[in-house]
């Protein structure tokens, strides 16, 4: 994997609503820790504001989007609960930041993904065009 990326990284929080298992006190403590964590990263210029996603929504699929189904977002371990955008240059640093996330101690996981400069579709189309060109030479 290319470990350098000028476009930053996205942290996708995957959750099964583990926070419902915490006491009020534990939850307050964690929210405080998380806030301090995020404020430190922001002050260092490493994080941009993220957003949480509501546990509702639908999935649209099929030609012309003819299927609209309710997603089981809350119960699923895989559901995306929110995201953060990191302005750091290497995946190692992005992973280290993900590892320092206070919520991990309780459950869930964090997907660390490089943000693309160019859509992978464009890159693949160019590769295929080049292969075809080579094949005709």
């Amino acid at each position: 994997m290319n470990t350098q990326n000028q476009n930053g990284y996205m942290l996708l929080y995957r959750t099964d609503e583990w926070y419902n298992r915490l006491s009020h006190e534990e939850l307050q403590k964690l929210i405080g820790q998380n806030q301090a964590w995020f404020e430190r990263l922001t002050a260092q210029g490493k994080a941009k504001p993220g957003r949480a996603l509501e546990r509702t929504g639908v999935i649209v699929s099929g030609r012309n989007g003819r299927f609209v189904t309710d997603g089981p977002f809350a119960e699923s371990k895989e559901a995306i609960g929110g995201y953060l955008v990191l302005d750091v240059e290497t995946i190692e640093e992005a992973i280290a930041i993900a590892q320092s996330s206070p919520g991990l101690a309780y459950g869930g996981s964090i997907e660390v993904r490089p943000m693309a400069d160019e859509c992978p579709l464009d890159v693949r189309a160019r590769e295929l065009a080049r292969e075809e060109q080579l094949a005709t030479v």
Partner: protein
Amino acid sequence: MNTQNQNGYMLLFRGNDWTKSLSPEEKQKVTDQWMAWFKRLTDQGKAIAGNPLEPEGKIVSGKNRVVSDGPFAESKEAIGGYFLLDVASFDDAVAIARECPGLPYGVQVEVRPVAARMSAG
């Protein structure tokens, strides 16, 4: 479901394996359509951010903060990119999702209301 939301909506594009069956021309066509779609939404003030994600990455999980490779490249479920929409109703967001040029090829679009703030993962 509350159909009004001042914080906007997120479209998550799922599926990273659907382009394999396309010819370079088809692929180019879908890419152009996708870019034009995003530009139109941006010009209309309906899309405020959007980005493709590289089909690679890592997953960090659990108390021990274990790092593992994700199956991002050839997965039906993997997230390939997102749009952040500034529209007021859920119906508007779904209508936009239904315009996604990748839908005929098997892309799934997850439409999620954005919450006011994130307190913890």
